[in-house]
């Protein structure tokens, strides 16, 4: 276990060093990432400007939601790059066979494949919007201090789980399918809006199937001390980030099943 951590640290250090070899490219990509994500907040802001509220929710609350989901996703994007490209670069080419020969967990090896620095743009921008949102909300409680790291950790686990599930799916489809982007980018998009704005089927999906609301909407309600109009008790927001870890656990189990049934491909 400890030995695995040491190995991961070395792989991560090598990956960071490789990315910093091209400082110009890195700065441009991170800046591009920052601007692109900031523009999407401009879209939300324009809706506020035009309609005064977002379905009755004030801009502080929506900014907190937006910040949380983006920070969580950027952490998962940084860690999970190996799973994102898994279909094209490991399964289709047959390179995964080489990973299987190494005496370490495939999950660890893929996590160490690349520690991507580019999402730092999304992270900074999300953190900035999150801070602004908390500043604008009138009743921020003390629970916020520990809820932010807890919700971000749960969210990172959730999105990492989606990436692992997406990679496990590649054992069946060989190539990566872009359709799973509806859970990553589409999940970020859905997490930005307060849950009651959606229809019932989508609310249930986002709470119990892919618990994006559990790492975003419910903890935010606790932070800004706003009762849930749909009647979910307040304490739920304090424990709901755990759903992200549950999701990650299920996906790791699915990954194990996928690896067990893997019969190579490629040349």
């Amino acid at each position: 276990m400890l030995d695995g951590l040491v190995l991961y640290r070395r792989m991560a250090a090598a990956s960071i060093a490789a990315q910093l070899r091209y400082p110009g490219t890195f700065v441009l990509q991170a800046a591009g990432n920052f601007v692109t994500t900031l523009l999407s907040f401009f879209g939300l802001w324009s809706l506020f400007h035009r309609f005064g509220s977002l379905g009755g929710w004030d801009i502080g609350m929506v900014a907190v939601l937006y910040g949380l989901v983006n920070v969580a996703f950027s952490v998962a994007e940084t860690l999970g790059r190996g799973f994102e490209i898994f279909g094209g670069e490991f399964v289709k080419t047959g390179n995964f066979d080489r990973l299987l020969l190494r005496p370490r967990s495939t999950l660890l090896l893929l996590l160490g494949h690349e520690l991507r620095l580019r999402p730092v743009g999304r992270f900074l921008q999300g953190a900035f919007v999150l801070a602004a949102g908390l500043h604008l909300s009138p009743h921020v409680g003390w629970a916020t201090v520990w809820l932010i790291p807890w919700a971000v950790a749960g969210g990172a686990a959730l999105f990492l789980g989606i990436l692992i599930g997406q990679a496990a799916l590649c054992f069946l489809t060989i190539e990566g399918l872009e359709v799973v982007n509806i859970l990553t980018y589409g999940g970020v998009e859905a997490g930005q809006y307060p849950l009651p704005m959606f229809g019932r089927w989508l609310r249930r999906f986002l709470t119990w199937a892919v618990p994006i609301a559990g790492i975003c909407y419910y903890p935010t309600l606790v932070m800004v001390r706003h009762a849930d109009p749909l009647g979910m008790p307040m304490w739920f927001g304090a424990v709901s980030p755990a759903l992200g870890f549950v999701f990650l656990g299920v996906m790791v189990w699915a990954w194990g099943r996928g690896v067990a049934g893997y019969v190579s491909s490629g040349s």
Partner: protein
Amino acid sequence: MRAYLSAFVLQGRIGLRYRIAVAAGLVAQLWFGAITLMAYASVYHHAPDAHAPLTLRQAMTYTWLQQSLFRLLPIGCLPSVGDAARTGAIVYDLLRPVDMWAWWLSSSLAWLVGAAVPRAILLAAIAGPLAALLGLEAWSLAPPVSMTAAILALVSFGLGALISATIVMWWNVLTARTLSPLGANAIAVPLSVLLSGMLLPLPLYPPWAQTLLLLQPFAGITDIPIRLYLGVAIPGGAGTAIVIQIVWLAVLTLFGRAWMRRTVDRLEVQGA
């Protein structure tokens, strides 16, 4: 002329090859469309007297049209030009006895249209008639307001596709110049998503930005045609709308060609 036509047909066939990608894209577009529509519905219901320039029904139709034409946006350089610039195969394009602008433009246009049209027809069929049949009339894609609007919109969509292909040409020249598609693609995505109305319908941005938004080239790709389709008033009427598109097409082509000549004159070729 035949050369440009065959470049068009070839690239179009490549686009039609990927049926699974079309299906996957369709699911993603429906998902994003559904989220956006529910958000708009909630926003509109909570502010009944906001006097938005689009009604909820129009905003929904706008969103569906935008989603179905997502691949018409100039979100990057032509992939084969990107590869050619990286590997040095660009020299073969330079050797062809054809006008390189028209050659690349034919391919770029086919790349956009070949990807966009099958997706647009499928998604429009699902979001329009099929949704109405399933009893989701209130959420569906509405038909054009009138026959005139339909014809105007069709002409305008055609011009929009040409403008988009011309903007792709600018990305192509930029790629040839910087020897890598990364830079062009990095600016192409945010610009097209924001300025074409994909992120938020252009009429819903703050009033002070309206004239500026209407007069920039990306509005001509999908926003102006959709406004004509919906019958939303455009300052100066439908005639002005089409003129804006033609002027941008001319300006982008003229300056683009000049830029391309300068780039080709001192082009560096890398690779083996």
